[in-house]
């Protein structure tokens, strides 16, 4: 599973910039970022290097942060790529809470991030022939210390 940061943000100008700046100042590189917005507040989902260090850094700067386990699946960058993945999960009866994707520059593949609460999605995805990414495929993991 991939460790994703979920950062709680009040809908306030500049708050997202502050969160990004905080990570930047700590030398933490971001791979992907997705904002989920409601009328009152937002939650920013971030995949970045050293996620647990990033959490500590953000918390020290006053942000509310949790680390969430998500799946990252590589699919060929072509029409219907994500639909195939979702259908495979649906057939296995697995419910996807949310999904977003990003492209790795220079590679002809998309990375799909999936939040799936129940069941063992890894087996289902691998049985369907997908490559489920490990943390080190995507970002620099935290020091084991």
């Amino acid at each position, binding site marked *: 599973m991939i460790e994703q940061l979920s950062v709680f943000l009040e809908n306030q100008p500049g708050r997202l910039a502050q969160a990004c700046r905080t990570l930047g100042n700590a030398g933490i590189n971001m791979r992907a970022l997705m904002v*989920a917005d409601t009328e009152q507040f937002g939650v920013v*989902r971030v995949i970045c290097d050293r996620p647990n260090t990033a959490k500590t850094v953000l918390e020290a700067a*006053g*942000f*509310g942060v*949790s680390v969430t386990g998500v799946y990252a699946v590589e699919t060929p960058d072509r029409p219907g790529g994500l639909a195939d993945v979702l259908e495979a999960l649906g057939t296995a009866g697995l419910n996807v809470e949310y999904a977003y994707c990003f492209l790795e520059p220079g590679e002809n593949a998309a990375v799909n991030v999936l939040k799936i609460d129940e069941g063992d999605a890894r087996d289902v995805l691998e049985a369907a022939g997908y490559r489920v990414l490990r943390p080190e495929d995507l970002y620099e993991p935290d020091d084991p210390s």
Partner: protein
Amino acid sequence: MFQPQWEAMSREKLEAVQVERLNAVLTRVYERVPFYTRAFDEHGVRPQVASLDDVGQLPFTVKDDLRSNYPYGMFAAPRRDIVRVHASSGTTGQITVVGYTQTDIDNWADLMARTLASAGATADDVVQVAYGYGLFTGGLGVHYGAERLGAITIPISGGNTKRQVQVLQDFGTTVLACTPSYSLLLAETAEEMGVDLSSLPLRAGVFGAEPWSENMRAQIEQKLSVTAIDIYGLSEVLGPGVASECSEQHGLHVNEDHFLIEIVDPETLQPVEDGEYGEVVFTTLTKEGIPVIRYRTRDISRIIPGECPCGRVFRRMERVSGRSDDMLIIRGVNVFPSQIEQVLTGIEGVAPHYQVILGRKGSMDTVDVHVEVAADTEFDEIRELEELQRRVRSEIQSALAVSIGVRLVEPRSIERSEGKARRVVDQRGDA
């Protein structure tokens, strides 16, 4: 019940007793206390009532009246009949003195015995009195009650927490009396000393003299393995023994044969309906040393409507939820910020840190309550956060009876201050 002949008497009989006792005390203060002679004359009221409906005509007494008649000016008994004094220091530092005759001390012992009995204590119990002894009413108040009940009474007073734990263990204490916060300190100390409180005979606690919440009760009951009973009193009226919870733990029965309780709107001073919040006002019905007529406590509470399954006739007041000095008026409704805090302590996922922002849209007041999300929240669960927001909003609205907006704000984002937190930001004048 320690005195079922009083505690479970009929409502009609009780009200007859109240009227009779009230008239006696009105005569007493009118004849003996110059302050009341003046107050009744200035209001143009006779110190007599035909029924409890007439109580609203009587003048109020406030803390300042006790201060300006310091030390003995409010006493209604000759000096030679006074056998004890207690004193309380106000926030301003100036103390007020209250005096007790032998009859007062006797009644007080009965009332505190009732209180301990309502926590389940009997003559077979061992009561550790860890309230301070001295000018403060807590220690001696509980002490006389425990003796009246016939329990073994340990006058250990406050402080020296390690010794408290030792005594708790060695003397087989079954009932603990102290402030709620001290009970938690005691539990922590016991833990540090390696004493397992749940293995001891301790089973009940009577806690009062400071505000506490349902959350704190749950903590105390779990850490000390006790049933935690809330007790209420103030020295100007008596000391502990004015009101106490029963085993139902749902509201504090006011000893109405000794004290008349009213809940009034702190602004208009008119009585509010049963069930509505307002300032608690007491008239002492039997006190000889220093009776008070319609004493404004500044405490905010309400009468819990309906009868209690325990069989006591006395009405119940809710746990005190704040001070009238903090009251806000929103769209004509009285609102006490502490009620918001009480709601928040009962909701998991939010911190009890909040700020009330008052604004104005056209001619309407708007209220937005900013509430901190707890730092350990699962922030990824947006639906749960939205659900949390809805829940906070509906619970605050039903507690305040005013429609409000709720905004969830980031953990630790509301300013903390050393002294009084800045709970209310009034922007109504800015528009």
